[in-house]
């Protein structure tokens, strides 16, 4: 068992027994589902919108070479510096170099899972920069030295009282209970940071090839301040975030808001096309876009699972996933949690080490059903299992399945097996639930079904006679 697998099992065991956690997440997700469905109903046809979105993303992903080049050229034409990063290390170094060359000291960030993916904050902190998260949820988990719990709702696992305690401990604020009061505390701290920062780092929700623009989606306005106030703006973008045309946003903005947060539209959607232009009174002096591969071209090469690159990181698959709802976001030990994380992490970080996540699914398919860009998520979990087992068959399991297959190819073994199981079942009762019970994974929480005195085959013989 790999180390991530052991820690997943330990985390899942703990969280699955935490009834408060379960209740909190179920309630939050129940509310989200109501809002999501209300807003889905505003689309003329949600099913067709999904198909259209999948087709647009496929077009972009299948012609990445063309659209990325176009995107980079159009950005450069308005004075943006475009960087290409093969992996996380290169991306971190590029961003640290930009900071060094621009004599930056304080950095403010808006929400970006891609920066989490490359562990940017830790790297910049090691280099002596003060890095500050300005998204409220990210701000809270940063204070607690925790990774985000969820792609879209980083601190959804915390109660307002826990947040108040965190603020009191880390910021010295008075204990308050109303969300508005908590927000005011955060705002007071943040305003100062916004004014002091000389570099702002954002993510990118969509990169528009046609016009050379990046689109940033948010609800709090912090991304607008992050990108407008500091003298340098750096945007980190996974190469799959490209969209061919500006018009495509007419579909993707409401779709991301609906699937991601159950909103008709998020409060702010901003487009950035370059640094401050001649004659403009404001905006950053420098604008850098860092394009990140980090395993994405390898996924592109996998024809079977290429559709994973359609992902717009809305988090809808996490929200409906009964596994996510029970084990929680931190248990995965990955940047991207839930079904999409279980699908792509083995590709990004190693098949053998991360395949346990593909096994930790009942394959219910709720994820596939809700995905706004129609990624074949549940089936990809099966394909990851096949790839991992095919590459390195686990010794004991391989033996078991070979034995099983042998029995199933020989009906007489299958029949004898059934009789044998019936004979042995009373003996199992002697050890049931104890440490000696070979079926304790089942019997700890479930009674065992009784093997019938007369199997269907037995009945059939008599019935036919």
């Amino acid at each position, binding site marked *: 068992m790999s180390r991530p697998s052991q820690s997943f099992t330990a985390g899942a065991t703990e969280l699955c027994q935490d009834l408060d956690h379960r209740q909190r997440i179920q309630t939050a997700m129940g509310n989200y589902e109501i809002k999501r469905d209300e807003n889905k109903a505003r689309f003329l046809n949600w099913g067709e919108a999904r198909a259209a979105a999948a087709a647009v993303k496929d077009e972009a992903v299948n012609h990445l070479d063309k659209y990325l080049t176009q995107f980079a050229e159009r950005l450069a034409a308005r004075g943006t510096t475009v960087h290409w990063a093969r992996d996380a290390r290169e991306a971190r170094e590029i961003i640290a170099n930009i900071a060094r060359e621009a004599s930056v000291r304080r950095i403010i960030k808006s929400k970006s899972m891609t920066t989490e993916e490359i562990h940017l904050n830790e790297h910049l902190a090691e280099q002596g920069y003060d890095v500050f998260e300005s998204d409220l949820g990210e701000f809270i988990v940063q204070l607690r030295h925790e990774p985000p719990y969820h792609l879209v709702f980083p601190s959804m696992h915390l109660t307002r009282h826990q947040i108040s305690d965190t603020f009191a401990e880390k910021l010295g604020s008075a204990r308050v209970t109303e969300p508005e009061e908590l927000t005011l505390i955060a705002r007071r701290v943040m305003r100062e940071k916004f004014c002091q920062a000389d570099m702002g780092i954002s993510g990118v929700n969509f990169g528009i090839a046609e016009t050379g623009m990046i689109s940033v989606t948010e609800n709090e306005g912090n991304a607008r301040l992050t990108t407008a106030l500091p003298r340098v703006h750096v945007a980190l973008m996974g190469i799959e975030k490209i969209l061919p045309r500006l018009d495509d946003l007419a579909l993707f903005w409401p779709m991301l808001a609906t699937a991601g947060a159950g909103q008709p539209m998020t409060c702010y959607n901003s487009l950035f096309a370059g640094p401050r232009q001649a004659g403009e009174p404001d905006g950053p002096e420098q604008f850098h876009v860092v394009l990140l591969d980090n395993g994405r071209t390898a996924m592109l090469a996998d024809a079977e699972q290429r559709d994973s690159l359609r992902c717009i990181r809305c988090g809808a698959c996490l929200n409906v996933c*009964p596994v996510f709802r029970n084990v929680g976001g931190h248990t995965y030990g990955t940047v991207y949690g839930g079904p999409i994380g279980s699908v792509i992490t083995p590709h990004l970080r190693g098949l053998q080490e991360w395949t346990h996540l593909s096994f930790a699914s009942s394959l219910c398919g709720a994820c596939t059903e809700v995905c706004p860009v129609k990624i074949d998520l549940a089936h990809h979990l099966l394909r990851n299992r096949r790839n991992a087992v095919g590459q390195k068959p686990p010794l004991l399991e391989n033996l078991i399945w070979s034995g099983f297959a042998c029995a*199933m190819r020989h009906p007489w073994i299958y029949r004898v097996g059934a009789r044998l199981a019936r004979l042995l079942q009373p003996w199992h009762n002697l050890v049931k639930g104890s440490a000696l019970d070979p079926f304790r994974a089942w019997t700890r*929480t479930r009674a065992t079904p009784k093997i019938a005195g007369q199997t269907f085959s037995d009945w059939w013989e008599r019935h036919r006679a």
Partner: protein
Amino acid sequence: MKISLFIPCYIEQCFPRAAISVVKVLERLGHQVLYPTAQTCCGQPAFNSGAWKQAREIARHALTVFRDAEVVVTPSGSCGAMVKVFYRELFHGEPEYQEACALGDKTWEFSSFLVNKLGVSDLGATFQARVTFHDGCHGLRELHVRTEPRTLLAKVRGLELVEMAARDTCCGFGGTFAVKFPMISSAMGEAKCSAILETKADYVISLDSSCLMHLQGMFDQQRAPMRSLHLAEVLASGLS
């Protein structure tokens, strides 16, 4: 019609009444029911465990057993999905691909067969009880069977159907998942059991005895007064 039955291994051994009821219902409708006795498992446990090589060996056996069948009916959304949906993927690029597709095309999940192929909804059953219905995920999302069992239950005399909260949520069985990750499986099962108990139903009905094995196991462990039945058992009740 000559109908060949594909009986899931757990029904064969633990829940024969479900299969017996299927025979009763189909014979009552005047069809000839066949049970090829060389049949074994569909191969799903190996398939879901990533052991596709072994799963193919098992599936090849099924292809042989049902080669000459006119139509195949299985009282399971899950095994039905294995044959109808996953055999295509399992045999993709293999010499048996066409045969796998052909078996998939002529295989039916039991309730879907009654409603969509035979066009019947009222079987003349009587069952005096308040029941709730559990949708197995494979039937629901792989085979898109949602209305068919409800159509059939609506015609059962004396039966009152009460839908549970979050009825589309998985019960947590998931085959080998139930024993590989028992803590997650059980947590999901607890939520499902609560939703079922809240309906105050006398019975929980499903197309899948596998989900029911897990749920009934949890009810029995908790000594909760809930009984489970396969849809076929309800449809066969009151038939002479």
